[in-house]
Structure formats: structure tokens, C-alpha cells
């Protein structure tokens, strides 16, 4: 027996599905799902429907504009409502994003089904799905599967699937779904949104990522990381240590709690390679590390490692690139 219907949480930004939404749709396709449907919310679902259709969704359930509410409770409850009404998919795929995790968790507790999170691989196996996730900073890979009732809830990390270039024009029906009474669970209200401007490519899409860590010594040295990233057409990233220290915003963080990146080249500057960090960048095609501690774990996965002082190596590197 093959897999039946699979739902995908499709987050929408600026009228289009996010990269994560397209990755999950590609993932549902790779599982050989009998049919693929999306669940979305916000004012722009209808506008995004053609793109969802082109990526393989035949229908999108639209939970509507939630205004200034947070999506976890309303979207979770809307999905639970569909399931309660007898529309039961085999599996639902959520992205490991801020909102994806919240919605998956709300839904899980509402319908009493567990979750498998941090998936870095999903494969169809008979009439089930086998998920893999990394443990101990990526030293072990655990495969697991659901034994309980459907739908199975998977939360998938970014870059697990590659979004596909899609032909235009496949139709995707939009069906409005009601958000049930949320009681107190929907009481949180967004009163202000702040956008932190970043120039250059996005961290998780950049072909080159240059990241800085504690080895930089002080916050103003991070400027070297930014300069090098800019010269290479890449994005600057950071270890958790310097994000925690307040040197750079959280959105720069690469690692278990931050972004997963898989650039062509990853340059780690003054990063020792805590498991928390490595799990977010191990998938990079080429890894260059500069660190003064020759025993730093980052060297165990580096293709090129320079045991040296970032305060000497980086300025010299930047100069050399400038003089080309």
C-alpha cells in the first residue's frame, strides 16, 4: 500500500510561498504521496495558490487572515477542525520555523498525536514514513517511524528537500477553513513588527557563508566577517556564543537553534565547533576553518583548516582578495 494524502504547511510571505513551503511540497512529492494539499493562512493565500499548484499542491486550505494574532493557536485549531470533520491525511509536514513548530505543537496536543521533529530526511517505507534526525550534534543519525494513528506529524528542518523549479499553470483550488473558538489560547497579540535590515543574500540561500565565533574576541571584530562575506558575495553568519553575547542578532545564528545552511563554501572564523553549531553547517560542500586551537572540533570536518589567529589571517585574506 502506498502513501495516501499528505498535507504541507505552506507559509506565505509577500504573496508567495516561502522557500520552506516549496521544499516541503517537493518532499511530499518525493514520498510518492497519492495527493498533496497545502494548509496556509494570511491575507495572501489566494495570490500564492498558483505557485503552490505549480509546486504540486492540488488544493490549499486557507485559514484566513489572522490579523495581529500569532498563528500557532488559530492555524493549529483550524487543522484539528478539518481532521475532526473526517478529513484525515496520512501525514502533515511542517517546517522547523518559528511558526511551523508552534502550529505543529498546538495540533499535536489537540488531537493527541505525537510529533517527530528535526527531520533531516523522510522516506516512504511500505505504507509508513521513516524519518531521520541527527543526535549528539550530528554524530548519530536516528531513524524512527510512527506506530500510532494518522495523521503523523513531522517537523522538517530547512534544506532537507530541494525546492523544484516548477512549470507554471497547474491549478490549485482554494478552500476556506474556519478557525474554531480559541478560548484563551489565542490571546497573544502582535502590537509591532520590527524588520532588521540585512543586505546581500539570505543566510540560508547564500552560496558562501562566512561565520564568526567567540575567537573574534570582541564585537567590533565581527566587521571583518561581514567584509569578507561581502567580498565573496556571501552572507555573514554567527555561532550561538556571539549571538548570546549580543554581538549580532539572532537571525545570524547558524546551528541547532539557528539556521541550517548548506552553501558551496562555509568559512568558520574563530569558531571552535560546538555540536550545536556543527549540526547547522555540516552539510556545506566545502568547509574552511580558521582557529588558533589546533584541537578545535571544527578541524575534524574542515576541508581546509588554518591553525592560526583570526586577527592575522582574516585581515591578510581580505587584503589579498582586495589586491586581485
Amino acid at each position, binding site marked *: 500500500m502506498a502513501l495516501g494524502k499528505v498535507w504541507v504547511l505552506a507559509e506565505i510571505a509577500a504573496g508567495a510561498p516561502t522557500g520552506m513551503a516549496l521544499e516541503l511540497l517537493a518532499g511530499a512529492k518525493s514520498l510518492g504521496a497519492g495527493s498533496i494539499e497545502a494548509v496556509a493562512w494570511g491575507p495572501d493565500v489566494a495570490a500564492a495558490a498558483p505557485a503552490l499548484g505549480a509546486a504540486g499542491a492540488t488544493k490549499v486550505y486557507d485559514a484566513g487572515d489572522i490579523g495581529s494574532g500569532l498563528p500557532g493557536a488559530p492555524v493549529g485549531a483550524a487543522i484539528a477542525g478539518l481532521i475532526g470533520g473526517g478529513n484525515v491525511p496520512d501525514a502533515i509536514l511542517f517546517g522547523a520555523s518559528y511558526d511551523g513548530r508552534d502550529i505543529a505543537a498546538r495540533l499535536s496536543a489537540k488531537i493527541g498525536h505525537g510529533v517527530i521533529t528535526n527531520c533531516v530526511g523522510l522516506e516512504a517505507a511500505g505504507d509508513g514514513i521513516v524519518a531521520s534526525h541527527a543526535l549528539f550534534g550530528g554524530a548519530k543519525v536516528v531513524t524512527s517511524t510512527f*506506530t500510532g*494513528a494518522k495523521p503523523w506529524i513531522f517537523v522538517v528542518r530547512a534544506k532537507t528537500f530541494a525546492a523544484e523549479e516548477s512549470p507554471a499553470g497547474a491549478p490549485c483550488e482554494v478552500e476556506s477553513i474556519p478557525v474554531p473558538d480559541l478560548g*484563551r489560547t489565542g*490571546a497573544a*497579540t502582535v502590537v509591532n513588527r520590527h*524588520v532588521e535590515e540585512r543586505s546581500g543574500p539570505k543566510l540560508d540561500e547564500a552560496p558562501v557563508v562566512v561565520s564568526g565565533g567567540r575567537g573574534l574576541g570582541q564585537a567590533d571584530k565581527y566587521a571583518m566577517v561581514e567584509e569578507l562575506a561581502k567580498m565573496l558575495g556571501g552572507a555573514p553568519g554567527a555561532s550561538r556564543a556571539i549571538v*548570546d553575547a549580543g554581538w549580532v542578532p539572532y537571525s545570524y545564528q547558524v546551528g541547532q537553534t539557528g539556521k541550517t545552511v548548506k552553501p558551496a563554501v562555509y568559512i568558520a572564523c574563530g569558531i571552535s565547533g560546538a555540536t550545536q553549531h556543527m549540526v547547522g553547517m555540516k552539510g556545506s560542500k566545502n568547509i574552511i576553518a580558521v582557529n588558533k586551537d589546533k584541537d578545535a572540533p571544527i578541524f575534524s570536518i574542515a576541508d581546509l583548516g588554518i591553525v592560526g589567529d583570526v586577527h*592575522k589571517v582574516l585581515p591578510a585574506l581580505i*587584503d589579498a582578495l582586495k589586491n586581485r
Partner: protein
Amino acid sequence: MLRMNVAVCVKQIPDPAAPGELDPGTNNLVRTGKLILDDSDAYGVEIALRLAEQAGGGEVTLVSMAPNGEVSGLRTALAMGASRAILVSDEKLAGSDALGTARVLAEAIKRASPDLVLAATESTDGYTGTTPVQVAELLGLPAVTFAKKVEVEGGNVKVERQTEAGYDEVICPLPALVTVTAGVVEPRYPSFKGIMAAKSKPVDQLDVAGLGLSPDQVGAAGAGQRVIEVADAEERGAGEIVEDDGEGFAKIVAYLEQLKIV
């Protein structure tokens, strides 16, 4: 608000600096040795203590689930200044998934009647990252996740919540649940006085039956999922590691040239 009662979910985990272990029979994380307070939870404890101090009083209650009546991590948080702890420990809880854990924590939290529930965004060891919001749903509470700043004002919690683009300012009436990221505050070190006082602070220990849960809602029985295999990840072999002799930068330039990045 005159008094502020805060419940903080804390996890006691094996030292993350030590190599992790799995039980070969069950594939569960081995948590039988000495456990410590998960670093991620120290931030929630610190925020809870500050909020109670700012409110001019109140209780900070720790809520934890751990095997073998383990309290060493709880003592650390009690030494920081928490008032008391509720510990749920029961053999039947072995193999619990995130939802089973949430059922246990939610029942335990009810016993503290908090104005605010705090938790880390995810634990350091298992990092499932869904347990707090599952707890909120089971308790019928609103939740604000990924908080990088938490304040309480006039019966509301004000949160700066991290987003893909930056952050949102969120207001939520109490009671509510908030998950905090690492680095939001600098957790205090326990003082000697605090460490001594922690030894006599109350830790209420409960089991599954005491919480009013049935054994099939928790543990491996309630998980509805099973581990198929645990394998070593594909090794990523180390490449060329060289000492910087002043020309290390040139190696990097040559490497980038070879990849046609420059």
C-alpha cells in the same frame, strides 16, 4: 500585580560536554548518571526570579520530569533562588515523547497555579522544541515562543519574539506560557548562602498515578512512535590542516580559486 507566581519548566540532562549515550535496548537517551540543569533553562529561571522580585514577591516553582528522583539540577536552580520544586519521577515515564512529557508537565504545573509559565525554546539534548507549546495547549493557555525579552506590566506579559525578519512585540494577558531563548539575560551564579538554603527547600515528588494520568498516556506506551535504528553519521573526513606561518591566507585564496569562488 502584587505577587507574581512563576512556574519554570526545567530539564535535568546528562552533561552535554560528555559523549552522549543511547540505551542499546530501547534507543532512549541514557539519563541514569549524574544529571545537571540544562544550561538553556538557567535563562528561564533567571527571568522568573527577576519578575518575582520586580512584582515585590511571589513564588518561583520549578517543574521537572526526571528518572530516579534526580534532584541535582533542581538544586542548582533552587540555589539561584527558586522557592520550591515539583519533580515527577516514575519508571513508567521511560521512553516518553514530547507530548507525553507535556502531559506530565501540564499536570504538575496545575499544582503551582502560576501566573506565568516559562520554558526554554528547546532542550540541549533532545531538542524536540515542541513540548512547551504542547503544555500551553493542554493547559488552555496562550503561548509566545522565542522570546528575547520578557516584561510583565499590568496583568500582561510583553515579549519581544524573534521572527524570520527581525522581531515582533507581542502582548499577552496572564496567565500565559513564554519560551525564552538563550542569552536573554545573564543567569546569576548561586551564592554560598543560596547553595546552603537550597538544601532545605521543598521538592514535592509525584508519580504518574499521583498526577492522575493513566500509564498509557505517557512513556513508551503513549509515544506512538518507535526508533528503528541509530547509526553513526557519515564521517566527514578532515582535509588539509596547516599551521599559519603568515601565509595561511594564501592557502585560503588558492582554495577559493580552485572552487572558482574568486
